């Protein structure tokens, strides 16, 4: 879902840089508060895992592939502001180091995957958890559903940006993006639930949103 150079208009790119830059400034200032002492190295590990897992494209169908995004994983582990920082870091290194995602689209990619995926994804997670979170199963359901929704939502936002730029009509690009990503989202949900369950089993104190918190 990394937008390359050339798909979006200059106006939209500039606006996204402004918004993402502002969000980055706020997150860098405030996110430390969300970070437990033990979670300091966890932020590095989460970012490393997101980077590595994003390299791992899995085939979807009809000659398409998808890869893990990791925004909801990061927000469940570290909270929304730190999730934004994880995505900002991963996307910046991918863009500058590995030519993945266009430089002109970096602001948009950070907005899409960091803000929509990480921050809005976290709100969706907490929203579902408020209804489902009375048990481990309810917690896992909230993680999985939010992961799936984050992929469909980010891909839809991406479609809007492409349409807004005049690159392709919305009625074509929105169903196409949301459709493919509805499938990719299942991969996202499986990976996120697996990793969160593993962490919850071994080190529940590492979770930003604890299972017990939902029970309270």
């Amino acid at each position: 879902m990394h937008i390359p150079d050339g798909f979006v208009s200059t106006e939209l790119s500039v606006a996204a840089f402004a918004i993402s830059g502002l969000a980055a400034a706020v997150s860098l200032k405030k996110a430390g508060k969300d970070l437990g002492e033990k979670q300091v190295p966890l932020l590095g590990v989460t970012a490393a895992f997101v980077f590595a897992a994003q390299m791992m494209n899995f085939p979807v169908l009809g000659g398409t592939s998808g890869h893990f995004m990791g925004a909801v994983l990061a927000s469940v582990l570290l909270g929304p502001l730190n999730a934004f920082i994880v995505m900002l870091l991963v996307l910046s290194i991918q863009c500058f180091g590995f030519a993945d995602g266009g430089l002109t689209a970096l602001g948009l990619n950070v907005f899409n995957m960091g803000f929509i995926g990480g921050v809005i994804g976290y709100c969706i997670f907490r929203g579902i958890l408020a209804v489902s979170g009375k048990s481990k199963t309810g917690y896992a359901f909230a993680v999985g559903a939010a992961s799936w929704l984050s992929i469909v939502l980010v891909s839809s936002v991406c479609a809007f940006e492409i349409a807004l730029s005049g690159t392709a009509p919305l009625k074509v690009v929105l169903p196409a993006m949301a459709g493919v990503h509805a499938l990719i989202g299942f991969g996202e949900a499986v990976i996120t639930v697996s990793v969160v369950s593993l962490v919850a089993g071994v080190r529940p104190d590492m979770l930003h949103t604890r299972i017990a918190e939902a029970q309270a």
Partner: protein
Amino acid sequence: MKKFGFVTIGLLVALAIAIFASPFASSFPDGLEWVAEQTGFLHLSEGYAAWTKSPVPDYEMPGVGNPAAATALAGLIGTLAVFIVGFGLAKLMKSGKSGGSAA
């Protein structure tokens, strides 16, 4: 030591994925590329890049003949770089907010 163990294991898992699994990643176009191809605007991104100084373009270490090794090496370096920068950044953020509550 136990908490250190968790972090170390997490990093090793990430490195293992980057080194051993990424060479087997699907080379099919991703969702966005596929839609761009089907809809007919993929050409807009071709032959133009705003940033051309990436040391490891497209996750293939330049100068390594074997493509699987080139990808594995790119994954190793990228994952380590992300970990180091992320850890350092988190330390800086935490020290700036030393009075912060845990989690």
